[in-house]
């Protein structure tokens, strides 16, 4: 069962690498925000998987809870912050 969790965690890390394309190349700022949010929601599951691999779930579950809240707050704060800066969206589309 440990091996299953190990390879699931590796696959999840690969998916996070895949969605890193959007934050790096995304045409607008909101596209980058979508990518960051998706990576954060995958990280929450990955943290619990790491806890199961190391047999310390009781410790890692608190970190996962804190990370979920932090991710939510970061997205809210970033979207409220970028609402007021219209000029930022004028960057040329990336083709």
């Amino acid at each position, binding site marked *: 069962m440990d091996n299953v969790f190990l390879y699931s965690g590796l696959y999840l890390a690969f998916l996070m690498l895949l969605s890193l394309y959007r934050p790096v190349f995304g045409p607008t700022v*909101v596209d980058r925000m979508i990518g960051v949010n998706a990576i954060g929601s*995958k990280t929450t599951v990955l943290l619990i998987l790491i806890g199961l691999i190391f047999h310390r779930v009781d410790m890692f*579950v608190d970190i996962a809870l804190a990370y979920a809240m932090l991710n939510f707050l970061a997205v809210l704060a970033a979207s409220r912050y970028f609402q007021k800066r219209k000029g930022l969206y004028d960057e040329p589309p990336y083709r």
Partner: protein
Amino acid sequence: MDIIVCLLLFAGLFFFTGGAVGILRFPDFYSRLHPAGKLDTLGALLAMIGLALFNLHHFSLGTLLTSLKIMLILVFVFLASPTATHAIVDAGVRAGLAPWTKGEERR
């Protein structure tokens, strides 16, 4: 028991894959939000239910509390994810991004 856990975990990973591929493939910002915000939510739901079930193998007060905490994360994700999606959409709308319609080239 292990089979149910593996099934739930793999279903969650499948929806996560859908979310990651959807972010890469969809043509514009509004349609990218569909897989990003919600396939990830269902994936997290299935995977976390599986992990909470696996955690209950050796039943004691400690593991029960840990599983309850995982369920708490789940409830929080279910409340927070639509709100975060709505905040991002609001930022996009106020910036004046026009939705992609059929026939245009992808951005």
